[in-house]
């Protein structure tokens, strides 16, 4: 198993109630140069978040008699912690669970058993994304909404992005994506905007040519254009 060392000691919080998974993750993550802390339930996890800075959280979907989603909800509703990338993991990787994970605010979903190379690549990607400049949500005739982190916009697949539930699009909202962000995300040409999902890529301003799919009229009016710089 070849593992490249992380450049600096990033803090990773693992919330998983399985001691064998914790042990394995400790081995893999510390071997790659990360520093890890562990929690086994929702309360411990939230406590750890409050007490220690975390650059990324690995969260099990199913925790004893709890659902890991509670941790995601806490983080995404907190102005202090909402930008922390969350990689959700589970042996229950059915479509419903995976979709729910992204809708509620997880940045990534990995099915157990975990593959070390894929896990480390995923962590590296999201740590890098979180270091990118902010994305601004601007309005033409209203105060702009500042999104402070890449974590406010979640990639759901090669083409799609979904807004965090905590972000409300104001009327005439302009979405601005940096080319660096798009390059990192590996996005492809702008084609569609659905109710909360935008597929975007090459630089330019998209107005009338932006297609709306499955979007109700009221929501469509809120998105005036999409600008990619």
């Amino acid at each position: 198993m070849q593992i490249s060392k992380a450049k600096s000691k990033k803090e990773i919080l693992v919330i998983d109630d399985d001691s064998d998974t914790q042990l394995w993750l400790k081995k893999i993550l510390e071997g790659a140069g990360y520093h890890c802390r562990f929690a086994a339930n929702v309360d411990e996890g939230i406590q750890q978040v409050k007490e220690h800075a975390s650059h990324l959280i690995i969260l099990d979907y199913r925790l004893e008699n709890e659902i890991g989603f509670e941790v995601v909800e806490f983080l995404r509703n907190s102005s202090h912690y909402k930008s922390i990338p969350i990689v959700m993991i589970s042996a229950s990787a059915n479509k419903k669970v995976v979709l729910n994970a992204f809708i509620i605010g997880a940045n990534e979903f990995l099915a157990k058993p975990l593959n070390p190379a894929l896990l480390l690549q995923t962590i590296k990607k999201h740590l890098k994304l979180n270091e990118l400049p902010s994305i601004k949500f601007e309005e033409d005739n209203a105060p702009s909404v500042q999104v402070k982190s890449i974590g406010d916009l979640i990639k759901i697949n090669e083409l799609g992005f979904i807004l965090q539930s905590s972000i409300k699009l104001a009327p005439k909202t302009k979405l601005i994506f940096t080319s660096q962000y798009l390059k990192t995300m590996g996005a492809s040409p702008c084609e569609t905007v659905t109710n909360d999902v935008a597929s975007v890529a090459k630089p330019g301003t998209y107005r009338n040519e932006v297609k709306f799919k499955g979007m109700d009229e009221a929501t469509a009016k809120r998105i005036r254009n999409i600008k990619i710089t």
Partner: protein
Amino acid sequence: MSNEIHVTIDKDLEDIMPMFLENRQKDLNALKGHLETMDIESIQTIGHRLAGNAGSYGLDDLGHIGAAIEESCISKDEAGIRENCQKYSEFMSLLKISYAD
């Protein structure tokens, strides 16, 4: 023994493998009690965790047994639960591990 199950594990995991195997023995001990009372919820938890962690330790077949235990619990198939727990016990008794880079 001719029916031993030989598995080669990544040498990097050698130091944590004993703990993993010790926990499997704890599982099997706990399952004996859970099977007597047919505590399906506890058996399902053991199966679920095994399904999630065994493959990461290089024991894919054991992970499949864990998934089968979980599935039989979900469908409340008591015969299936006993059969898959027996497979778990047999797998562990026949398992022979070696390590390689």
